[in-house]
């Protein structure tokens, strides 16, 4: 019997993609599902997971502090994402128009700081933003803030440091698309009556929309679950959902409660992803 080539091709395809699927199943899907299950287990005093099933965690999630924290997590993450996009679009435009020599050099300059450990970089911001640090001193000297102002431990510090941390994650996908952008389209737009700024918004920005969506996912999702930056440069008033999960897990040793919060976060993260994926499908169907 002759082997059906289509069938064979399909078999090869399954064989080649199987390891990836198994990996996702074992290390992503099952643990996520496990977390969801744990949130329906009772907690024990020793910090373990009890026997049987309960809806206690759902009751605990009605904590009056949570809606505020949830809302803050959302708007802070969105603010970080939007700031990253606003910064990376013009930078990507500039980089894409640079000569090949400068492109590589400038990209390297952007990447070099990220060879330093993430925690160290965040701590460095603590030094910069400290009331006696150079930024506060310069601003105070310029009369923009009263001397001794605390720039640290508030939401603005969290946004600033997060934007700094996540900028490459926005810049790289945007740049990757911008680099392939056909700049003859900008000329065509100007030829048809646009000035430079109109051409930028009418042609360049839509032209790199794929990169913008990727950047949005790459920045928004990690920030929804962020806890390191708010923990180090944020104060009590700027706790995010991630910080609460850590507190429930390590201070209260209430695993099911932390799992419940994590599940809420997972849904929060999945929602924007689904929106983006549906949006892309709709665009491609057109």
């Amino acid at each position, binding site marked *: 019997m002759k082997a059906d080539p289509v069938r064979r091709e399909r078999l090869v395809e399954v064989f080649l993609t199987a390891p990836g699927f198994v990996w996702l199943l074992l290390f992503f899907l099952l643990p996520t599902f496990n977390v969801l299950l744990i949130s329906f287990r009772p907690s024990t005093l020793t910090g373990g997971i009890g026997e049987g099933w309960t809806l206690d965690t759902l009751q605990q999630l009605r904590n009056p502090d949570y809606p505020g924290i949830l809302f803050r997590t959302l708007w802070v993450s969105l603010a970080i994402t939007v700031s990253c996009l606003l910064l990376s679009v013009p930078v990507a435009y500039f980089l894409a128009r640079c000569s090949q020599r400068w492109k590589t050099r400038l990209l390297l300059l952007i990447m070099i700081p990220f060879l330093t450990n993430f925690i160290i970089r965040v701590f460095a911001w603590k030094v910069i933003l400290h009331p006696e640090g150079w930024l506060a001193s310069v601003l105070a000297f310029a009369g923009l803030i009263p001397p001794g102002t605390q720039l640290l431990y508030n939401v603005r510090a969290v946004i600033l440091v997060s934007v700094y941390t996540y900028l490459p994650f926005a810049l790289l996908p945007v740049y990757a698309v911008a680099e392939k952008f*056909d700049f003859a*389209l900008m*000329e065509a737009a100007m030829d*048809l009556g646009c000035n430079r700024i*109109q051409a930028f918004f009418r*042609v360049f920005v839509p032209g790199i929309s794929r990169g913008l969506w990727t950047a949005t996912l790459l920045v928004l999702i990690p920030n929804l679950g962020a806890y390191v930056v708010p923990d180090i440069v944020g104060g009590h008033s700027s706790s995010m959902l991630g910080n609460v999960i850590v507190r429930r897990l390590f201070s209260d040793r209430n695993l099911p409660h932390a799992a419940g919060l994590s599940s809420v976060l997972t849904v929060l993260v999945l929602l924007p992803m689904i929106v983006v994926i549906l949006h892309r499908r709709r665009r491609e169907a057109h």
Partner: protein
Amino acid sequence: MAFLEFQNISKTFDGIPAVDDASLEIRKGEIFSLLGPSGCGKTTLLRMCAGFERPNAGRIILNGTDITDLPPNERRVNTIFQSYALFPHLTIFENIAFGLRVARKPDVQVREEVEKMLQIMQLKGHEQKKPHQISGGQKQRVAIARALANKPEILLLDEPLAALDLKLRQRMLVELDAIHDEVGITFIMVTHDQTEAMGISDRIAVMNRGKIQQVGRPAEIYETPLTSFVAAFIGDTNFFVGQVAPAEDADYCTLRIEGFDPVLCFNDKKLQPGQTAYVSVRPEKFRIHTEVPEGHSRLNVLRGKVTDVIYEGGHTDYWVDGPGGYRISVTRSHQRFGLDEAPITWGADVWLSWHADDGYMLEQYREDDEGLLRLPSPADASLLTELPDES
């Protein structure tokens, strides 16, 4: 008065001249072609007209106004880009409407104008498609519609047919001509394809190395090339070099070409005896004979041996080894039934004749330009003839 005028335009890129002191006058309503090999500066000249580049020196005057320093969006000039540069995120309708939308025209008017363009360009039924869903020829028409919707005074076309395959190219050329007749505005086209330029243009400027070599009607460019570059780039030709000697008729001169009998040549350049003259004779100007042709006072005759015959159906190309080491390209068109005569074959002794008026004296000659000729140089030719001996 000239409609569009380039006055002594120069442009350098990183110190390398792209356009060198070019002056041109383009008339209202004509199809004008900038023709030349790649890197000759023709596209730079077009881009300066569109406003994408500023000249380092010189002025561009459109209809009496100096537009040299105007940005592209303030010129009533639109461009068809070589890659068409259709906006991939917009539908065909919105692509055509783009300029009108930027100009904030009311919706009703936009719809009306775009509909009209769709009609003219035969794009009905495609308006809701995206550019990647239509064919190359349709993209070309969308690009033209998008430009014409703005009612430009001049349409600039940058290698408009280069991205199309041969059959489509020939059809689009006819279509471009029809569109030009319909809208009646000035077209300026950049091309490296001489048949394209000759076929459609009212006038042509031939460019090489940033300089304009010659401006004229296609027939003028072909029949009376001023430089060896123009003669060799447009069609094919043969160059001869000789010393001028006087002739009986003052409008003519006798040329002493090495190995040739004295050659009579029309002397419109008024060269004096003793000067060196360079003459271009097109292959089809020669007549090829198997016997000594009956001469007359204005007929030049030479003897040669056929070294190659290329039969093309409508015509045959012969390469003839003439006196003085000249290899001469000759084209003979077959205007009558060809099977009842003895063919001229490889190795035949032949006579070539041409009328004194059919050789054209060049103003400027550069040896490099011989590289543009179809005929291989003698060195290559000897290599070719040696090949059969080896086997």
